[in-house]
């Protein structure tokens, strides 16, 4: 485990991405502990520029932008990770089912996947969210989750189909392993990198989409999140009156987590697909692999000695 982590951190993109994401998680977990309990409280005059009292200024309602930002981090990350799990769960189950069982099941799932892929996501989300009324961040997470699984299902299906033709899978089938064992013991471990890739991508997508939906006025305006902050800023013409802090703070927060997550994803991609590595990383990876082999060989020697 520790060795895997070392190889992982040797990739600079993955390491920086991980650091950014962990920083956000830390802020979300412990940040609110240092702040006043109510981010919606009025703490000063409207549109006060940043100063010592309000680190990032105040909104038009006189609310503290910094406090809202920290509380918003909690909401946005929670929605992102929850919907990410949902997307991955649906996509993986459908992808494996289609790729493993084939036949009619594959035809039906594949058709549904392709249809969902071509129906434009945001317009569809707008219709669903509009009928649900001003929805809480949690409900937004659910509707994003149930409409965004198609990409993951398609990729998982393709990988499952290619794995299914491998000799070791066919051998275990001949031995008579039951389907559940085939899926969970033989297939799953080889799908892990795709599932992880899908998860990180889905979290990024959800955080961005939630902020967009709320910006368009489809969230609950009383919830504190980056999207509602942008919505209130847009509605109070913060830009036109020069209150840049009200826009810039949530904008930078969304951009930062997006960059962190996509660096992480790109790093993981490079690690699992050696062709994408640049020469420096290849040398570093080769060295890491050598060390790993040596450590393993030593471990085996010790085992043998015992």
């Amino acid at each position, binding site marked *: 485990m520790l060795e895997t982590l070392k190889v992982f951190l040797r990739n600079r993109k993955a390491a920086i991405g991980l650091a950014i994401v962990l920083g956000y998680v830390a802020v979300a977990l412990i940040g609110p502990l240092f702040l006043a309990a109510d981010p919606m409280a009025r703490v000063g005059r409207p549109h006060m520029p940043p100063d010592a009292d309000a680190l990032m200024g105040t909104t038009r309602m006189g609310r503290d932008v910094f406090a809202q930002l920290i509380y918003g981090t909690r909401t946005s990350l929670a929605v992102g990770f929850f919907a990410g799990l949902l997307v991955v769960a649906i996509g993986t189950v459908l992808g494996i089912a289609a790729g493993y069982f084939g036949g009619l099941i594959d035809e039906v799932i594949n058709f549904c996947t392709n*249809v969902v892929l071509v129906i434009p*996501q945001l*317009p569809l989300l707008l219709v669903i969210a509009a009928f649900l009324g001003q929805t809480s961040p949690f409900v937004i997470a659910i509707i994003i989750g149930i409409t965004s699984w198609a990409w993951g299902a398609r990729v998982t299906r393709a990988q499952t189909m290619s794995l299914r033709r491998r000799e070791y899978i066919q051998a275990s089938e001949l031995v008579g392993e039951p389907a559940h064992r085939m899926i969970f013991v033989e297939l799953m471990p080889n799908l892990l990198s795709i599932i992880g890739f899908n998860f990180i991508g889905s979290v990024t997508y959800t955080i961005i989409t939630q902020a967009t939906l709320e910006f368009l006025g489809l969230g609950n305006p009383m919830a504190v999140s980056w999207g509602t902050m942008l919505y209130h800023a847009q509605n109070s013409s913060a830009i036109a009156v020069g209150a840049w802090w009200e826009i810039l703070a949530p*904008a930078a927060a969304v951009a930062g987590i997006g960059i962190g*997550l*996509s660096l992480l994803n790109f790093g993981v991609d490079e690690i699992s697909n050696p062709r994408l590595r640049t020469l420096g990383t290849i040398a570093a990876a080769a060295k890491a692999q050598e060390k790993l082999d040596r450590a393993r060989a030593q471990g085996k020697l010790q085992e043998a000695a015992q």
Partner: protein
Amino acid sequence: MAFVLRRLGFYVAAFFVAATINFILPRLMPGNPIDIMFSQAQGTIPPEARAALIETFGFATGAIHEQYFSYLKSVFTGDLGYSIRFYPQTVGERLGYALPWTLLLAGTATVMAFCIGSLMGVFAAWKRGGAFDAVITPSSLALQAIPPVVIALVALFVFGVMLRWLPTGYAYNPGLDPEFSLRYLGSVFYHAIMPVCSLMIVFVGGYLVTMRNNMIGQLGEDHVIMGLAKGLSERRVKFNYAARNALLPSVTSLGLTLGAILGGSLVTEVVFNYPGLGQTLYIGIVSRDYPLIQGQLLIMTLAILTANLIVDLAYVLLDPRLRRA
């Protein structure tokens, strides 16, 4: 030909699904769908309009399958009912007015992002690990992860409010009449610069990375090494041998990202107060104009499916194997 026909059949089926979702959604909500639709617009709509709305939407009476067929009939004849917010305009009229502006914005941004991104991807892959690749690839990745709304807001603040270089709203100078004159077209161009560029910047990175990764895969192939061994010029190997094959997966990804660009365009329009679908929709959402919100799903699905069909045709042009089949 068979390939294009098969795709066409699939697109008709996909549109059917979108229309069905539109039909089912209001009926899944608790309470009477008509009451939901009008709850926010009480008093603003005369009773006879209400009756007309109910009729065109097929909510009337009758068994659910009868409602469904009369709904499908009105959708396929292009009748999307009346808008609540913009009454007495119909949804079709209202969206028909807004659609060209959105297509202009999203279309220009797509073409620019795809061409610039793919071209930069070719260069980044050719000198992998070089200075260009080391700077442009990570920074385009970073840009790609930033939502369009953030880029648009920051651009509006910097170039529109702080520097005052570009207009902060509208599609053309309101003092001009829409006509085919240089002054009017110039004004349209001037007003489109900021929305188009901020939308393009978000998507350029995706195409760059796709192209770069495909291209790197191609560079290891025998036919490229053969081309180099034959002593062909670098340019010829780069574009005719490697890039042409690497372009195929890029075209596939173009089809898949069209929906995201259209969504990005909606948000960008709201920020720049641009008179396209996004801005119309924003007004519709604020005033809970359900027929308008539903109509946009159908119109945008139609736009995406048409664009996908064009991408398929491009695919046939690029891949000779499909032409023979």
